[in-house]
């Protein structure tokens, strides 16, 4: 590892995250004065603390979700040796949306929604993996195709669900599908944290193997990696990260695709560095995007997925253009 370059990248990512967190806590539809927050008394101080207590879970959840998506994206790009892989490529977004849609239409309590979305995401991943089996092995090319099929299928299911859902249910579903951190609570942060930690730990443990996969699956096999078991584990960990993130925050695009590219440009493709730097940068991006979604048209809130797309698409276009 180029130690200096990695240290620099890591430091930059941490700095960005710190800035984003401060930005996230201080901005929003309501002006929050740091002075009031720290030293204010009476109504001004109370208001400041109240707003901060509403924003803090959102900032924490944004950071966690951004982390999960970016790490899952980076790992999948290496596993599939495909720079265009993103965490949703394998059907998890479609499955999650379908799960949440069914829960909503069935009139279940909104508290059930994250569980339903998670179940849908994991269910879809399992189905996609099963589709991609070829002679006892997980065929990575078929995996991509199977994921595309799954997402297409779920889109159709969703459209059908939308057409029979009441107007309000449809609007709420749509808002969720575009990604929203609006109802972040400390409970959700605590619920997501173990998934994030576990998924991250597993993927980092597989960083060396992922480096070998990034040169090729055959390359990994020839160097002694048990490729079938590794594929299953990495796939499962990524699906858990993605499913959990989507369950709590809806479908937020571009983070899982873009952040690994940006991190790669900064620290190279060594997964031992790329995974942690992607995690931190992903957190920073989503915290910033959430802050923008709260402030751009205050008091109205934009869906955060719209913000990440608005930021992400031009950046991606720029990255493509500068790489001949």
């Amino acid at each position, binding site marked *: 590892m180029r130690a200096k370059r990695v240290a620099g990248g890591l430091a930059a990512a941490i700095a960005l995250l710190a800035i984003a967190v401060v930005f996230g806590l201080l901005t*929003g*539809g*309501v002006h929050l004065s740091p002075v009031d927050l720290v030293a204010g008394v009476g109504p001004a101080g109370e*208001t400041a603390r*109240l*707003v901060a207590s*509403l*924003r803090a879970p959102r900032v924490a959840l944004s950071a966690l979700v951004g982390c999960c998506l970016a790490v899952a994206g980076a790992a999948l790009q290496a596993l599939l040796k495909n720079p265009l892989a993103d965490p949703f490529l394998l059907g998890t977004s479609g499955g999650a949306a379908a799960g949440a849609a069914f829960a909503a239409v069935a*009139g279940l309590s*909104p508290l059930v929604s994250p569980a339903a979305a998670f179940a849908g995401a994991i269910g879809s991943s399992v189905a996609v993996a099963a589709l991609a089996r070829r002679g006892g092995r997980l065929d990575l090319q078929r995996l991509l195709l199977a994921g595309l099929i799954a997402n297409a299928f779920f889109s159709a299911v969703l459209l059908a669900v939308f*057409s*029979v859902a*009441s*107007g*309000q249910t449809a*609007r*709420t579903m749509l*808002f969720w599908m575009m990604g*929203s951190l*609006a*109802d972040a609570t400390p409970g959700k942060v605590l619920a997501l944290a173990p998934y994030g930690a576990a998924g991250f730990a597993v993927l980092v443990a597989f960083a060396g193997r992922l480096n070998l996969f990034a040169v090729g699956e055959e390359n990994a096999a020839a160097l002694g990696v048990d490729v079938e078991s590794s594929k299953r584990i990495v796939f499962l960990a990524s699906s858990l990260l993605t499913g959990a993130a989507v369950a709590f925050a809806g479908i937020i695009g571009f983070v899982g695709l873009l952040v690994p590219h940006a991190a790669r440009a900064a620290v190279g493709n060594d997964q031992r560095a790329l995974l942690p730097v992607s995690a931190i940068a992903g957190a920073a991006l989503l915290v910033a995007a959430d802050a923008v979604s*709260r402030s751009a*048209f*205050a*008091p*109205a*809130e934009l*869906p955060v997925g719209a913000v990440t797309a608005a930021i992400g698409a031009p950046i991606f276009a720029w990255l493509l253009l500068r790489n001949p």
Partner: protein
Amino acid sequence: MSEYSDYPTAARAIPRVGGLDVSAERVASLRPDLVLATQEGNARGPVTALAAAGLPVLVLPTGSLDAVLQSIRRIGEALGRREEAARLADSLSSRRASVRERVSGKRRPKAILLVWPEPPQAAGGGTFLNEVLSDAGAENLIETRPGWPVVSAEYLSTAPVEVLVLPVSTGTRPAFEHALSAGALSRGSIRRARVVWMDDAVLTRPGPRVFGALEELASAIHGADSRRSP
């Protein structure tokens, strides 16, 4: 007859052809004398198809209380019951005028109307409900944003909301109550707002009954005897 039409009770006996999206075939098979459609809310496709098939289609304006009155008059004309329609429209119109008169000159409390609690989705500027809120003598805090914006919990917890209008049905009320007790509506200044529960079937569907809802809303906001409520 759409699935949303459940008043008067006699209407429930009439065959149903769908919700907001309508099956053109189903409609045509019932061989109606007249098809009523609105500019928004109905799928344009089926309506165009029905018109092309030669069925008489009357497209009605929507989006405001005036549009409701206009619709009533036009329907009356189309059905050859112009006098009746004009009577109804005039009476609704004068009810509206008297509400406006009643609330004029009074202080307009700051209000928000939420069509959904989590995430909190409000009626913004240019909407039908914004007009109702305004006619009932309240100031819609979300008027500056058009359409149906989702508002942040932090805004609700710091905004000077005095009246919170919640159109609900038996099915949706629990979600609103949860939001009030533990959710997005449970912290900060929104707790001090006075909650006005309304029947969403009456308030949110543009039709003659909205005028009754308007009166009810005005009374709730300003008091039945025109005194400002605490």
